[in-house]
């Protein structure tokens, strides 16, 4: 059941290493020719989308998910070799009435810190969770 009782749920602490090859593949998939991206030195701005994880208790059916919005804020760029400590959380759950009936919005936030605890980036993902498809 997706409702407001999920607000505040958190992931475990995740450790992610920013890998040079992952930066390269990500830049190549976008078609981004910036040399520092293609060499895997500096990650493109939307790279944190690759640092995936789960929030216990939040189980979503992928076919019902529509991505409504995404936000990244940086204190500094991500670089190859960075080790990030990421925690994600359910920031909000709310209903809105749309043309196709009620829609559930879920806002997921994440923050990545360096090993000394300084914030490197923050992200916010808004998804629309559609009603069960009519059969």
């Amino acid at each position, binding site marked *: 059941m997706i409702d407001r009782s999920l607000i505040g749920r958190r992931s475990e602490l995740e450790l992610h290493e920013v890998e040079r090859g*992952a930066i390269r*593949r*990500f830049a*190549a*998939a*976008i*078609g*981004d020719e*910036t*040399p*520092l*991206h293609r060499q895997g*030195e*500096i990650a*493109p*701005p*939307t790279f944190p*989308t*690759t640092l*995936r994880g789960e929030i216990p208790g939040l189980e979503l059916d*992928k*076919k*019902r*998910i*529509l*991505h*409504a*919005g*995404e*936000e*990244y*804020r*940086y204190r*500094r*760029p991500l670089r190859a070799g960075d080790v990030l400590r990421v925690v994600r959380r359910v920031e909000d759950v709310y209903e809105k009435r749309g043309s196709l009936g009620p829609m559930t919005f879920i806002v997921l936030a994440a923050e990545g810190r360096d090993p000394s605890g300084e914030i490197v980036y923050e992200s*916010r993902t*808004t998804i629309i969770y559609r009603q069960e*498809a009519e059969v």
Partner: protein
Amino acid sequence: MRSLPQAGEEIPRLEKEPIGKLQLLHYAGASGDDNLIHVDVETARAAALPGVIAHGMLSMGFLGQLLTDWAGAGAVRSIAVRFSRMVRLGDRLGCRGVVREVREEAGGALIRLLVYAENQEGQRVTEGDAEVFLRD
């Protein structure tokens, strides 16, 4: 030292190639988004979609490229978008950025921009705001 842009100025446009199946497959792999609505037409139809749709995040990636092509790798301080319209297989996106505000700070200037991607019909598919830091 470069001269600072002015509010209202448009930054150089980025015109992307049409989005093909291979790009969606590569983006799925590189991003870790394995939702099959982006690569498999049967799954897309079962989800009541007209066909395979592109990852919204791919269009946001294009907007990231628009900004770093202009300001350089590592210059983006923030980017926030909403995905207002689906991007379909074969769509050709053009990315635009317009300077909204220029604030001089120690060592450079923080530039706020409106950014958006539009499809070949001129419809905005992804739009939002960004901040980049231009060093002196």
